[in-house]
């Protein structure tokens, strides 16, 4: 029997994975993936909760998050490509022009 708690645990795990990825990854592409994981973890949570309350707004939220995630990917990849074209690497240690 799977309860809401299990969903939360799943969310938590996914979220943590996302966070770790965000912190550890030096490849921009991977970094973006991790952020996607974050968002999807949240989606899971929302859908579960909305089912629990029989309230649609949760799922609504989930859908919007998906949409936003998609557009984020669009923008992110755009930036990524720009950057790659400029100095052929997607390693984020390469962007350290500005500091201090």
């Amino acid at each position, binding site marked *: 029997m799977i309860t809401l708690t299990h969903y939360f645990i799943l969310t938590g795990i996914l979220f943590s994975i996302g966070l770790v990825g965000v912190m550890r990854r030096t490849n921009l592409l991977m970094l973006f993936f991790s952020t996607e994981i974050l968002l999807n973890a949240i989606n899971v*949570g929302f859908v579960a909760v909305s089912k629990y309350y029989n309230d649609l707004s949760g799922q609504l939220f989930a859908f919007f998050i998906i949409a936003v995630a998609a557009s984020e990917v669009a923008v992110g990849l755009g930036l990524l490509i720009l950057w790659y074209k400029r100095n052929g690497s997607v390693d984020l240690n390469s962007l350290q022009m500005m500091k201090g």
Partner: protein
Amino acid sequence: MLEPILIDVASLNLPALLPMAILVVGALAVICADLAVKGLNRSFLTMITVLFIILDFGAVIGYTGPARGFFDVLLVDGIAIIAQVIILVASALFLPLSLSHRHFREFRMAEFYALFMFMIVGFQCMVVSDNLILIFIGLETSSLALYTLIALHNRAKAFEAAIKYFTMGALAAGFYGMSALIFYALTGSVEIYQIEKVLMARHFEPLIGVLAATVFMLGALGFKLSLVPSHTWTPDVYEGSSAPLAGYMSVVPKIAGFVVAMRLFEMLVSSGVVWVEHILYAAVVLTMTLANLTALVQEDVKRMLAFSSISHAGFMMAAILIGTTQANTALFLYWTLFMFTNLGAFTMLWIVRHRKNLWDERYQHPYTKFSGLVKIMPTTATIMGIFMFALAGMPPFSVFWGKLYLISAAINSEFIFLAVIIALNSAIAVYYYMKLVIYMFLKEPVTADAKLYATNASTPLKVIVGVAVIFTIFAIVFVEPLLTVITKYVIASGF
């Protein structure tokens, strides 16, 4: 066999949606126009955009209907209106900076203006709603548009800035979602007022849940408001993006963020959950102080201004922490005055912008660039000096009155220690503003060539600077009316 859903159009209260609608239409219109007619001049595009903003402005001012609308996701209350007014005015003042003497690629593209308008729509959505979903959408719309705008500047630094901003923004979005999820899970609603009701009824139990949600929300908004430790993007992004955009970023996204923060944290602070108060306190003090200290050691004026705007944001968070009517009034007053001054300061940077980095291989506006400016261009130097003094909170210039009102708000609600810290911070802050003044007025010039400093000057820019200067010097005159209006609206929306 579904029942047809009947919705009374009046109950939708579409006028509430009108302001956003106008700009969306405007954005699309601009793109279509660009498709139809090739090579539209940037001046045309700018002015069209400004016109749409003015229309929007009219709609915002004109609207005094019932507070909620459009499936009750919109909440058009006092602070929403003030915030929108500030946003729109700022946008209308910052956009014409595109009409600089030198041409920049982004300003020739219609997309820039479309994105600009979409961004404004996003901000408006953030402020006119207390529905977490809509706020999220607004947040993301504006942010995504903003990332793109930054990147459009098409310099290596601009890309770096955009990427940094974007990535951290994505993380922040994650935090926001998480916080929303927890609130939803706790209360089964995504409407702030509903959440508040439920939590109140439950005396904020389970507290840990509430706190977790708060923490994530703090993370998300902290990023937008550049609170420590999520402030690290600010200087880099400002440095990377063009001066007008940087100035814009220092004002508009923050005000939107503040409104959201107000809506969310007011409830928590007033809830009497001391923890939140303490955390906010710490965040405020840290933000002010750390930013100030770092600003002391900057070599580049733009970066310095970035840090200074962080510390100003710290002051604003203090207002939210205090949370009295006077404090919220102070917030808007401060931000209005700050807007004009910052507008002026960044416009000056925009004017003295030179194609090549003559003074420093990395920085566009190192302090050394301005040394002895008073001997080369007295007027420019004096105006810049006035802006610096104003930012430093030197009476009787604009920001001083905001600071005055804020400190007084702090004192009146017995936040004496906070008031002292704010005061001390402005004492520290004065140094880095003075530094520029000292370079301009007391040092010997490195070059006698006045042209170097005027390559980007143009009439519109000068006009804008003029407006900013007038507002900065004669702020006294505007303080009283501003106070009355703002107070009225703030009280009206029950803060």
